[in-house]
């Protein structure tokens, strides 16, 4: 019998990737994956007040692991990777309370990346 939960998770991941994502560039050092489909979660404004007031816009991004491939190499998201939107806004993968993890139940259908905005759109 088919694993209905796994099939459902895969269907949700496909829907997110196909219908609510945008095309971005995923950059690591000098290498980049262009034309990548990634869905942006809800941006949240944080205030870091430990030394002055630092206003940070954080947001999760969702990417299918099967799309995160540079040449033939499958990438695991890392701290300091950059997601670049078509309007130039850059989001940097930085550890917040959560580092990149595979989500959608235990089926690992999507990467959830915690990012901070480091460049606003032009």
């Amino acid at each position: 019998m088919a694993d209905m939960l796994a099939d459902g998770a895969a269907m949700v991941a496909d829907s997110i990737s196909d219908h609510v994502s945008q095309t971005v560039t995923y950059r690591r050092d000098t290498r980049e994956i262009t034309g990548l489909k990634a869905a942006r979660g809800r941006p949240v404004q944080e205030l870091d007040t430990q030394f002055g007031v630092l206003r940070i816009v954080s947001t999760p991004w969702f990417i299918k692991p099967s799309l995160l491939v540079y040449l033939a190499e499958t990438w695991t998201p890392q701290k300091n990777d950059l997601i670049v939107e078509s309007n130039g806004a850059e989001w940097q993968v930085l550890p917040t309370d959560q580092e990149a993890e595979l989500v959608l139940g235990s089926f690992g259908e999507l990467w959830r990346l915690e990012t901070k905005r480091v460049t606003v759109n032009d």
Partner: protein
Amino acid sequence: MAKAVIVTLADEVAAELTAKSGGWAESFEAERKYQPKLDFEDTDMLHVQVFPAATRNIGADSRASWLHEYDIDVLIHYRASAKAASQATEKFDNLQLLVEQIGDHYKTRRATVSDCYLSTSSVGADSGLPYIHSAIETQNQFVSGVRLTFRKSRST
């Protein structure tokens, strides 16, 4: 227009730091703020912010005057690029030197600013940390500061 002593102090510290900017480990223009506030996106360049942090009346100085203390904080923020990230050692070394230089500048000169004399200065973050370690880890960012405490005897 007359200004409060602590505001005048913050203004003069910011102006003095900027005027000597060429002599520091890193060039900057200090900004005097009421509240030290930055957007994360803007911290990819060095920011030095000066602001009034605290004021205290610490007791009678004579039968006719009171002794007041004024804390002026100098905050330093810089975020390394994604490429350099937390390994931006050379830049962070320069910033740590800058923090030390600012502290030394006031300690050695015992500056008299706005008719106030420097009482103490402390360098770095709270608890004796030279910078905020967690900011390096989570934000690729060097964050530190100098607190200057001035004293002034006032008749009111």
